[in-house]
């Protein structure tokens, strides 16, 4: 069997690859938690994470691969309740890449890092044959203040699930560019620092956070349900999707629930903190469209009440989510 695109889609095939190969050999107490970032018992508690970025086009409406590579790792650190501090950046450049374009991207990384309060402290560059593109890997370290315990395993029946804004923007933006469909959809690519910052400052009991990236909300919620051994109940009417993104999905037969985002997150809090958390999130720029989308139940898996009152299982993405004819 060979690798194909679906192994990198963040969906089921990726999960199998994870379990069957990486998990098999790398398995250890820290890695097995399958969090976005590792929690380490160094002198002081730190979060430490990595991600590679391979998006094409490398510059798109609302961002570029450089901005993305900072936001992605910063967000993963934030999701553990950490304050992001340091990044590393590894570049794999394809022969033929325009230096001007590289400079734009590097400048954008630097600007994004500055805004997010992180410092890039180590780097590496390789050049490979190819078609003028580039890949970026970032790793990051964040400090976890005393007393914080945020984890995908913390979710319990009755907890409320908040989503920071509309779904599918990044995915639709990138696919639009590749398929040359004109629209005004911009990637939501953003560092989410403001949301955890305000929640912790105001004493919200944050149980779980997750950025909603590759694989989409469907995948993230299924993982949480699985890890926390609970069910999740959503209401379709409450899930915000920009009408232009919805139109894009209609054209290609895509589902916003399995589409990737790069500046969206979910927060899970006890019922009594939900309204206050929502208000706080809405006061931030990256959370202004925040909504309550559902709650944790005693059940299993993720179930959604549809607009017409039906109910459907929301499963993880299988394979790639390719545009379809039928």
């Amino acid at each position, binding site marked *: 069997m060979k690798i194909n695109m679906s192994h990198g889609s963040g969906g089921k095939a990726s999960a199998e690859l994870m379990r069957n190969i990486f998990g098999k050999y790398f398995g250890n107490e820290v890695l097995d938690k399958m969090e976005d970032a590792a929690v380490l018992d160094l002198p002081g508690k730190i979060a430490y994470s990595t991600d590679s970025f391979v998006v094409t086009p490398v510059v798109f409406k609302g961002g570029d691969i450089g901005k993305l590579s900072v936001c992605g790792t910063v967000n993963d650190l934030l999701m553990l309740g950490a304050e992001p501090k340091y990044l590393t950046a590894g570049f794999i450049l394809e022969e033929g890449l325009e230096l001007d374009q590289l400079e734009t991207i590097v400048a954008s990384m630097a600007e994004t890092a500055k805004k997010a309060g992180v410092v890039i402290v180590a780097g590496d560059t390789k050049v490979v044959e190819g078609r003028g593109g580039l890949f970026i890997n970032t790793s990051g370290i964040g400090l976890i203040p005393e007393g914080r315990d945020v984890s995908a395993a913390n979710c319990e029946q009755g907890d409320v699930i908040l989503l920071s804004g509309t779904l599918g923007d990044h995915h639709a933006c990138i696919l639009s560019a590749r398929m040359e469909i004109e*629209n005004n959809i911009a990637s939501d690519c953003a560092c989410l620092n403001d949301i955890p910052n305000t929640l912790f400052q105001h004493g919200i009991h944050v149980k779980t956070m997750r950025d909603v990236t590759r694989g989409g909300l469907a995948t993230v919620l299924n993982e949480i349900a699985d890890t926390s051994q609970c069910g999740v109940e959503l209401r379709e009417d409450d899930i915000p999707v920009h009408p232009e993104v919805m139109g894009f999905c*209609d054209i290609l037969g895509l589902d916003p629930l399995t589409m990737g985002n790069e500046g969206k997150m979910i927060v899970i809090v006890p019922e009594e903190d939900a309204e206050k958390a929502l208000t706080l999130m809405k006061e931030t720029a990256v959370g202004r469209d925040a909504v309550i989308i559902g709650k944790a139940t005693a059940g299993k898996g993720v179930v959604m009440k549809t607009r017409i009152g039906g109910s459907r299982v929301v499963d993880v993405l299988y394979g790639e989510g390719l545009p379809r004819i039928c």
Partner: protein
Amino acid sequence: MCIAIPGKIISIEGPKAKVDFNGNLVDVNIGLVDPAVGDYVLVHAGCAIEVMSKEKAQELIDLFQELEEIGV
């Protein structure tokens, strides 16, 4: 997967039209239909396959009235 929603013709140039689906502009072949700018069309695999009746294109047809007319 058929595109369930109709798109609106924004401009026509020869055998092609720009069709707007909720703000998404797609180039569509109109060799199978005779639409005018402003018409709503159903699109499949890059071809407009029908022009929608004007008065009914943008909203759900009044199905329930129709059912009653049919008498089921």
